[in-house]
């Protein structure tokens, strides 16, 4: 499986890439949102793992752009998006996802 990791922090990027590779997946890396967007269109990864806070095009806006593109081109496939966030409990996002899902 092709998985993209987008993070402007080199250390974080190295760790996520190592984790993805260890799971046996191909890993493409991007240093910011714009590069991630360009590479996503080029190589169509199944999954995007992206930091939220990146300069320029941040993770949340990138996710929104991906979904808009998918809406306009439904035959283009679906990219699962996993966002990397600052520390905190997951309970509130579960509620949000179930409500919106």
């Amino acid at each position, binding site marked *: 499986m092709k998985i993209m990791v987008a993070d402007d922090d080199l250390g974080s990027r190295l760790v996520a890439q190592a984790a993805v590779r260890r799971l046996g997946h191909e890993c493409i890396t991007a240093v910011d949102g714009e590069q991630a967007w360009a590479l996503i269109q080029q190589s169509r990864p199944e999954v995007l793992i992206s930091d939220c*806070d990146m300069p320029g095009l941040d993770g949340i806006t990138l996710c929104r752009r991906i979904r808009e593109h998918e809406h306009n081109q439904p035959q283009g496939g679906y990219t699962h998006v996993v966002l990397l966030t600052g520390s905190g409990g997951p309970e509130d996002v579960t509620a949000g996802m179930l409500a*919106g899902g």
Partner: protein
Amino acid sequence: MSAAVLAEDRERCVAAGMDDFVAKPVRPDVLERTLNRHLTAGTTKSSAAAAGGPGTDPDQDGLPPDVVDASRLQLLRQLDPDGVGGLVTAVVGAFLQECPTRLAAVRAAVAAGSGAALAPATHELKGSAGNLGAVRVAAVCERLETLGRGSAQPGAQLLQQLNHELDAATGALAQLLTAQPAVAAAGSTSEGRA
């Protein structure tokens, strides 16, 4: 960070159409479980319960006891594809190299009295410190970040504390690099602290 700020961030992520989130610093086992949930369960979003346990301690009044969290480093060692410490060396090297710039950004933000600049500057340093298990540095950054987001001015003492913790962490990490047998064998050029 306040629960309200976190909840707001998460709502924005959900509204943007994300499938799941993983809290930083990334733990490989949590990432794996998260990926498996979405890739084997098809498109059933409702089956996506939250990623198990971000693995970070809740906010404490005091700082964590260890300068560098050994379990985090151990995780990085286990993640290493070659098993000779290359990943740890690379990640520690990146941190040590970027530290002066990041600290300067925090100092500049404090000197300018800018909460708007302080929050992102400390957030970045917190992230890279946490990635390596420099938990005391991350904890002080969290305090500074909270002040920055609230447009409050940090006292000189907190900045001094950041300096102190950063010195301790970079010292410990640099020592770690020189202690790794693979580093000597690979002829690494990373500098240790006297």
